[in-house]
């Protein structure tokens, strides 16, 4: 019979093997590629003469670094807004939906099975000068002319990304909220706390881990986002991911693309590690 300790290798082994084989090794390949001095198409099997030329190119181009910073900021705003707006949804599912919670949750996720490209095409319809949102706003007399910034701009990218991420962000928040036991809330009520007090002093603090998980889950991939900027960002909404995508796609310059990707990866890991440390310190202090 397998005790706790004996089970550990079976718990750690499969994921570790999978990740090493299908993630670490390929990532290593990317690192090797980023150290290639050749640009453009590199036939597999050609000699590898490591060099930092590609990294030099990136670090020497202030525009690239500024774009990285801007993309990280956009990701921060999107993650914050999405987590904030996801919170009421998750709260509803955890505490108000009762028996139907799973049904409601599934309903939230199903739209994601629809092609993102097609959904964004209809979203463009809604955001455009003749679209639903502008018609509503001008019909209500709130604006004189159609709002330009809703489409082909950086704000359009932010709005769309927040919209897309809310259901996903709700999941870790929900999981975190489900950890809260009735007994804790009952105890607070017994001590005289009203509903708002219970919310702020019991529910919110206990749900922080879920919210933090949601924030990171949104933040990290959004730094490298490129699909949404391509479709509705116009020239003002271009993000760092567009650069990477360009070099791996039509421009066919894998070494430079790899270097760009590695720099983004390092920055993101540093940001997340720092944030994780800050969050832990606060929890220790509270």
């Amino acid at each position, binding site marked *: 019979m397998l005790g706790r300790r004996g089970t550990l290798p079976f718990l750690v082994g499969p994921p570790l093997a999978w990740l090493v084989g299908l993630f670490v090794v390929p990532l290593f390949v990317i690192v090797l590629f980023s150290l290639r001095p050749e*640009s*453009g*198409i590199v*036939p*597999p099997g050609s000699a590898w003469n490591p060099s930092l030329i590609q990294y030099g*190119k990136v670090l020497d*181009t202030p*525009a*690239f670094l*500024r*774009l990285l910073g801007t993309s990280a900021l956009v990701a921060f705003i999107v993650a914050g807004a999405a987590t904030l707006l996801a919170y009421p949804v998750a709260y509803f599912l955890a505490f108000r939906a009762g028996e139907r919670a799973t049904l409601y949750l599934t309903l939230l996720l199903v739209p994601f099975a629809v092609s993102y*490209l097609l959904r964004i*095409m209809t979203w*463009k319809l809604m955001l*455009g*000068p*003749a679209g639903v949102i502008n018609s509503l706003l001008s019909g209500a007399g709130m604006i004189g002319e159609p709002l330009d910034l809703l489409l*082909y701009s950086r704000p359009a990218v932010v709005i769309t990304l927040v919209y897309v991420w809310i259901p996903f962000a709700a999941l870790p928040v929900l999981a975190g909220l489900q950890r809260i036991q009735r007994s804790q809330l009952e105890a607070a009520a017994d001590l005289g706390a009203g509903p708002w007090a219970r919310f702020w002093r019991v529910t919110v603090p206990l749900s922080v881990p879920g919210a933090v998980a949601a924030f990171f889950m949104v933040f990290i991939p959004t730094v490298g986002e490129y699909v949404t900027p*391509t*479709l509705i*960002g*116009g*020239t*003002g909404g*271009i993000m760092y991911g*567009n*650069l990477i995508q*360009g*070099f791996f*796609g*039509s*421009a*066919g*310059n*894998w070494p*430079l693309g790899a270097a760009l990707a590695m720099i983004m990866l390092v920055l993101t890991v540093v940001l997340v590690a720092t944030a994780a440390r800050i969050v832990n310190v606060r929890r220790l202090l509270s």
Partner: protein
Amino acid sequence: MPVHFVRRAFVVLASAMLVLAACTAVSPSESATESESASESAAVSVAPEPQEILVLEWGGYDDPAFFADFAAASPEVPVSFEFGLSDADILGKMEAGSQADVFHFYSGWQQFYVDQGLVQEIDTSQLTNWDKVPDSFKAQGQVNGIQYFLPWDWGFSSILYNTEEVPEVTSWDVLLDPAYAGHISMWNDGPAAVTVSAYVHGYDETAITDQQLADIEAEWIAQKPLNAFYWSSEYDDLCPGVMDQTVWIAYAWQGCYATALYEGTPVAYANPSEGRNSWIGFYGISADTDSYQLALQFLDDKLADLTMSNVVNLFYYGAANQDVMDAIEDPVLIEAFGVDDPAILESTNFTPPVTDAQRTAWTEMWARVAAE
């Protein structure tokens, strides 16, 4: 929360998907093997090539209309497709050892395939439709005098503009004109931007100097805010913008011109003083294929009248089959391809081959423009 709920939900979901998958299963390979054994038992003494063909193709060209003649002549041969996203991607896939028998790419990349031994000569004596291809096109498919590539589709790049908002366009520099700020759309491609600047300033496309490239970069950084957006995909980025009249001036291929005109948008396709740009799509036969005869058959059928008319009529791209081009009656297409103008192909600027170094410099330049 009921304990066995989740297990049941999983089982139902998973089995439903398997059932659905079974219902939609279409297995051409099964029918192919059946007919293979049937023809084997007929005992014909032909070298036993595998009777299926894999094409490394651009998305959209897997439509059966684009190999209609082949499908009609050889219905038992399954045609499968591997997709490439760009010329660079297709070259990359061939280099990485793609199993494709035949691949499709556009002007300017011929040399790379030959240099790396990825392509073999096309035996044009076996092609029944070869005579219909104009000589100038045949020449573009040759490297060192050897016919490695088969020209198939072609077209122009020029300025597509809204005739209600823009007076007649006579020069490529309209793409850089601040008067139309917010209503221009440029293709998201560095080499294209270099080409436009080369036309406007009279630079030699094949010999752009560092100073010229720096000037070009500055020019396009200034141009960037004039765009509504850069377009990447003709039919889902550019065309809707042209048709809802957000975009008044665009770097475009003639496909969008025809599409927009058919939908009633007031557009025209410019004949700028510097000349239009034109490009040709080529097919090559992989050096490693074990279905050479089948590939030849496939390419020959690709040049046939029905298939090539489909390219013209369904996709609004030019066909390398001159008979088909001469038979065009639609005035929109006649205008788009300049069929009326016999000198059009002489006054046009074909995309020249560029070296790896040039391509790298130009794409990196464009990335800097995008990042500004």
